[in-house]
Every structure is written in structure tokens, then in C-alpha cells.
């Protein structure tokens, strides 16, 4: 009975020990082995055996590409304009032991590095060139960070600028500038139009006055002609003229009476004298 208990306990111990000693590392990750607290080796994908109780696996590191979101930040360009830029970085852990022992938290470390490098690179560019040359920023960023992350066994595969926008105040200012420019053009165009209109109007008045003057001359000539002809035709005789004038006078009065806004018509009693009075005779 004692023998069986000991053997059963031994079997359990064997199973647990072998279980602890066998490490299956999946593809895409590596495990760090510490022997009694000190770095010993890095386990590659596949089955590995470590010494149970002595070796530990405190870190499991992915060797797949890690997507790091670089939070958006305000960057001041060389010409003192504020732009907001954010990026996304793809990093790959090349030496897991360096990444694990070289830096406390490599994700935060690289995020901050990219942020500061981005700030200094954009700080050397003017607003317009920063807005238009993403590829150049990308290349410079990669170069700038490359040295800093060398100690951490991390490879920066790519860093992409996601958004690079002027800040809200800057955007507002740019919009205002554009609006003001358009306003200025509109004002100039309107003033030019008004000037053109005034000139044309004056031209029109001048032309009209000329023609009016001509017309007056023509009318005067016609009146003179008419008067001459009437004078020739009538000679000293008075009556026909009186008759004609009287007729016209009465016709005019009649027309007056039919018009809508004149209800009271005063007819002179002594018509011939009235006509005479008109003729001043």
C-alpha cells in the first residue's frame, strides 16, 4: 500500500514536471527564458524543453508586426502655423530579449519617439511644404527613429502620416483669408461695374441731349416753316385763323372734359374774344 502511494505521487510529479518542461511556442511569437532570474535563452516557435523549476518564461513576445497608433498632436511649422498631425507606425520585434530588457514599455517609448521626431521634422518645414510632402516626412521620420530604437531590437517597418491638417484656429484663419480675398475681388468687381454703369449712363445722357438739341432745332425750323406758310396763306385776313383756332380750342376743351380727372370745365362765354386774347390781338 505504501509503495503504491509513493509511486502514484511520483507519477503525478512526473506528469507535472514534464508538463512544465515542455513549452510549445506558436509561430509568430517567441518566449524569453530566465534561468534563476537571469536571461538564459529565447525560445523559437515549435516545441521546446526547458528545465522545470529552474527555468521560467516571464515574457511572451509577438514577432508579428505591431500596429502602433501615434496619437494626434499639435505641431508648429517653421512659419509659426499650427497643424495637427497623427501617424501610424508598424514595428517588428527583431530581438525579443533586447525589447524586453532594454526598455520598460516599448510601445509607449516608440509612440513618444515618433511624436517628438514628427514634431521636429515638421518644425523645420513651412506650412505649405508640410501639407504637401508626406513622403519626405515619412522617410525622415524613419531615419530619425532608426538610431534610437536600435538598442531595443525593434525594427520600424513603416510609419505613415494619417492626417496632417491645420489646427481649427489656423483653418479658420485660412478660411477667413480666402473669404476676405474673395470679398475684395467682389468689391473691386462691383466698383468697376458701377463705374462702367455711370460712364455709360453719362454717355447716354450726352447722346440724348445732343439729339434733344437737334430735335429742338428741327422743331423750331418746322414751327418757323409752318408759321411762314400760314402767314403766307392768310395774309391780312383774320377770320379763318380765328375759326381754325376756335375750333381747336373747343376740341381741346372737349378732350379735357372726357379725361377722367377733370370734372369741372370752365368755358369762356365770349369765345371769339378769348381766342383773340390767346392770339393777343
Amino acid at each position: 500500500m505504501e509503495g503504491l502511494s509513493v509511486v502514484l505521487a511520483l507519477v503525478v510529479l512526473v506528469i507535472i514536471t514534464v508538463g512544465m518542461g515542455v513549452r510549445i511556442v506558436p509561430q509568430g511569437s517567441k518566449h524569453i527564458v530566465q534561468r534563476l532570474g537571469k536571461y538564459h535563452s529565447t525560445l523559437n516557435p515549435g516545441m521546446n524543453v526547458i528545465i522545470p523549476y529552474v527555468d521560467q518564461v516571464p515574457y511572451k513576445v509577438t514577432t508579428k508586426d505591431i500596429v502602433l497608433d501615434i496619437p494626434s498632436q499639435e505641431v508648429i511649422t517653421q512659419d509659426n502655423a499650427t497643424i495637427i498631425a497623427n501617424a501610424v507606425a508598424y514595428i517588428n520585434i527583431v530581438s525579443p530579449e533586447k525589447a524586453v530588457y532594454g526598455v520598460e514599455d516599448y510601445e509607449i517609448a516608440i509612440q513618444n519617439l515618433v511624436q517628438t521626431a514628427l514634431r521636429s521634422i515638421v518644425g523645420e518645414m513651412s506650412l505649405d511644404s508640410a501639407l504637401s510632402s508626406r513622403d519626405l516626412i515619412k522617410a525622415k521620420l524613419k531615419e530619425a527613429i532608426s538610431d534610437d530604437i536600435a538598442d531595443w531590437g525593434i525594427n520600424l517597418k513603416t510609419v505613415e502620416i494619417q492626417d496632417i491638417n491645420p489646427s481649427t484656429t489656423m483653418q479658420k484663419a485660412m478660411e477667413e483669408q480666402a473669404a476676405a480675398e474673395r470679398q475684395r475681388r467682389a468689391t473691386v468687381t462691383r466698383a468697376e461695374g458701377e463705374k462702367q454703369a455711370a460712364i455709360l449712363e453719362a454717355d447716354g445722357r450726352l447722346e440724348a441731349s445732343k439729339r434733344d438739341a437737334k430735335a429742338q432745332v428741327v422743331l423750331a425750323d418746322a414751327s418757323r416753316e409752318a408759321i411762314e406758310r400760314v402767314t403766307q396763306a392768310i395774309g391780312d385776313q383774320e377770320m379763318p385763323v380765328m375759326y381754325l383756332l376756335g375750333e381747336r380750342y373747343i376740341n381741346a376743351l372737349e378732350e379735357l372734359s372726357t379725361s377722367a380727372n377733370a370734372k369741372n370745365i370752365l368755358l369762356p362765354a365770349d369765345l371769339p374774344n378769348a381766342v383773340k386774347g390767346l392770339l393777343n390781338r
Partner: protein
Amino acid sequence: MLEWLNAHIAYWHWLVLGLLLVTAEIFVSGFILFWFGLAAVFMGVLLMLVGMPITAQLLIWAGLSIGLVFLWQKFIKPNWKDRTTSGMAMEALTGQVGSVIDSNIGKARGRMRFPAPILGEDEWMFMSTSEIAVGERVKVTNISGNTLVVSPL
């Protein structure tokens, strides 16, 4: 208890246990149960040939299991080829041969190019303890950040 077990454990108990353990391997991760199962099957065969007390059986089984795991790890697994280095930057890059397109003479770093892109890029910066002229072929020995450490071929 001991007498009862001695009287009732037959060779086929071990066979069944072994097969169950091997089957269980499918459902549990880790390549351990398989060896315990294999050892149990072994034990069953052994018990068919020679009778022995249950304690001896268990001891042999445990020893056999450890031995199998050890043998597997020591002699068979090293001969397995790594089929892929995907997701392993260091293994994918070291040993690769490329040619220098921008010399590192007088500079800290030069540029080199691989015939096919490695890790998504065919041009890499390199540094080396020796000065390497343009056109020479170099072999990657290590990676430092985004720079390859190379030695002339």
C-alpha cells in the same frame, strides 16, 4: 487495494489508457500526453509478455514517458526543418546576401539591395566594421534597429 490492483490490472487496461491519452492529445495543447500514451501502450505490450506488480508498472511507465520526451527532444526534433521564417524578422534577414549600392566608405552607413524584397523592403541601410565598395556582395549577420549589420562575402 494493492492486492486488488495487482489482481485486476490487465495488459489491455494499459492499452486502453494509452490510446485514450493519445486521443486526448488532440484536444490539449502541448506535445506531452502523446508520449505518456505511447508509454502506456508500450506498457500494455510489455505486460502481455511478462507479469509484474502494479508499482513496477507505474514506475516503468513514468520512466518510459520521461525517456520518450527526452529522446524526442534530443534526437528527433533537431532534425526537423523550420518550414517558415514568417513573422520572424531576425531569422528572415540573417544569412541573406545582397549587393551594396551605396558604399559606407567614409560614412557610418551605406545602402544595400536584395534581389527580392525582404520584410517588405528591398533596400536597407547597412553598417559594417570593414569598408565595402559599391557592387560588392555582403551577408547579413545581425540587425540593429533599421540598419543591417553585414560582413563582406
